């Protein structure tokens, strides 16, 4: 079986398939996009991680500094130290003879200190789920405590 020249030329002629080419192009573009997305995400995650580590370090640094400051305040306000400073300033403890009491007629003394009503009447969590749920609601600012009318002193 032989082909004439026209048939040979016809068989060699390229018939571009635009559909196939577009599909390949889209595929390559998609892969590139996915790659870009992945790179962006991983870069973002790395940067966030780095920022988080940095913030955690800063937080830890501040915690340590805070602990040191609390201790120094504790040393400076120790009763012995305060008493010495007060004495140097010329202060002296009050004696009963120096105290003057004013009698206020019909004064109703305050009731003894009690915890806040919301604490006393806080519903008892029946399970870990309840506890977690209430904590979540509190953190979201949605209070789940009972109406305060029930909390009489």
């Amino acid at each position: 079986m032989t082909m004439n020249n026209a048939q040979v030329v016809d068989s060699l002629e390229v018939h571009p398939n635009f559909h196939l080419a577009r599909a390949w192009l889209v595929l390559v573009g998609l892969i590139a996009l996915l790659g870009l997305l992945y790179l962006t995400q991983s870069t973002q995650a790395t940067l966030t991680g780095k920022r988080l580590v940095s913030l955690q370090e800063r937080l830890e640094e501040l915690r340590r500094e805070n602990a040191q400051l609390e201790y120094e305040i504790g040393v400076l306000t120790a009763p012995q130290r305060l008493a010495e400073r007060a004495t140097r300033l010329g202060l002296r403890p009050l004696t009963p003879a120096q105290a003057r009491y004013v009698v206020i007629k019909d004064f109703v003394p305050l009731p003894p200190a009690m915890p806040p009503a919301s604490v006393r009447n806080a519903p008892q969590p029946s399970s870990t789920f309840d506890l977690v749920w209430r904590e979540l609601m509190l953190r979201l600012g949605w209070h789940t405590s009972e109406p305060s009318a029930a909390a009489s002193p």
Partner: protein
Amino acid sequence: MTTAVLSRAPLRMRIVFLTLVAAGLILAARLFFIQIIEMDRYSHRLSDQVQFQATLPARRGDIVTADGTLLATDVFVYTIRATPRDIQQPERVAATLAPILGQSYDAVLAKLRSADKNVILAQEVPHTVARLVQNAKERLEKEGVALGGLEMHVHLKRVYPANAFAAQVVGYVNAMRDPAYGIEQEFDSTLRGTDGRISGLSDALRDLIPFAVPLSQPAVNGSRIVLTLSSSIQRVAEVELGTAVRETRASGGTIIVLDVKTGAILAMASLPVADLNAFHDPANADKYANPAISAQYEPGSVFKIITVACALDAGIVNAHSVFEDSGSISIGGRTFNNPNNLVPGRVNLTDVLRLSLNVEAVKLGVGLGAERFYRCVRDFGFGSLTRIELANEVAGKVKSVGDGEWREADLAANTFGQSIAVTPLQMIMAVSAVANHGTLMRPYIVQEIQPPQSASLVSVHTESGTEKHERWGQRTLPTPVRQVIRPEVARTLTRLLADAIMGESSHRAAVPGYRIAGKTGTAQIPIVGGLDPRWTIASFAGYLPADDPRIAILVKIDKPQTSPWGSEVAAPVFAAVAKQVVILLGIPPDSARQ
């Protein structure tokens, strides 16, 4: 086909081909060995190299007084180490670090030039100084001085800012983070907290690589414990006790101040004591136990309050009873005399308390009978733990009929506080039961336990022994133990005690403007084979205002040398403490309240 091609190939090509195949097989075998057989070992080595793991230490909770004075806290301290061979320009480094570390240039230089592989430049360096060292290190490195050999290691240290203040209540934590005595020991698990962890990938320098958000479990710090102690009242107690012990040349002593209505301890001071930051000094080893709860003593005549209370409650006497006191009485083969061999003749109950008549106390005990007397004594809390939240409490010793040790003479001796062992806390709790209308309260020294994140307080009921100890959130509620005597009996006894004190215009326990109730005690100290002929324990237990008691105070002075008597040694200390406590608590004098 391959065989045919190979058979046609030249010899050299065949050799090369077979060599390549053999090498491939060897590599494959090696890979199989590494990846399959030795997989665990290599994966561990890999994970050791790339995994970053560190512990985040939890801070132990603070201990504070009710008014916020910090008694115990954790601080971060640093150990600064150097590897001399990795330090460039040691002269320059020494010149920079010496002033920061507070050491001489020569001392630092000597360490940096040491032949040792590793040297400690400074220990227990506070955070502020460590930060200066870190800044100096970074500055030197920027200037081209290699300081790879300079390292800082951080750890937590327990410190006590108020030194010896309330030391026996607080207790201490040693360098190994093990607690001893007081709140530190009793609430160790509450104070300790839980360490956190941080994990991720590390680089060659073992630092965390932030490829991803590191998995971390934050440390949960320990809870903060708020005591019922008032720092002002505690200081008054410590100062007055120190003065009394010094002036009477006593071996030690104890003062307890408590709120009679709740049982809350406002002050608890004992001597000798030592700085909590110096627990490692062997000379201080025996100064941290709390004698207020762990030292037993024979209370002496203070105990007559209990004997009279039991007799009044049983109805064998009343406030108007009159007695004929001959000055001595024989029970169980032993003769008991009044103090100073007093023969007072006709006396009433107020006289019995005022003159501290042993003979009448014995008669009351005998009138009650051993069974009723000991039941009443035990109801007042003697012979059992008060269950205050402090470590190492002891129960004292109350003999019982039929326990093998008890003799008839013991009943007589017990009525005036001899041959019975109590703790100072038991004694003042029993006296405060009289002040509190006959109701014995459970003493408590922890007002509140604040969780590290205290946003969610919940009501908690804790079961403790046979009694429920009710708390809200982590706050302790006053807990009555039992009604020991009837309220009217308590009122009568308070009046008798107050009359006994106020009847003497120069009583040394008197507090101007306030009617007080109380009793002195002068107890002999038991030694092997009898009682110590030389030393006594002088004490005073009382409360005020007598018409509406708010506070009870126990003063106990051990082995005073200036006088053996509670009326001369302990009563003035009671007055000195009470005068200041009424001011601090804002308790108006009787004239302003009536």
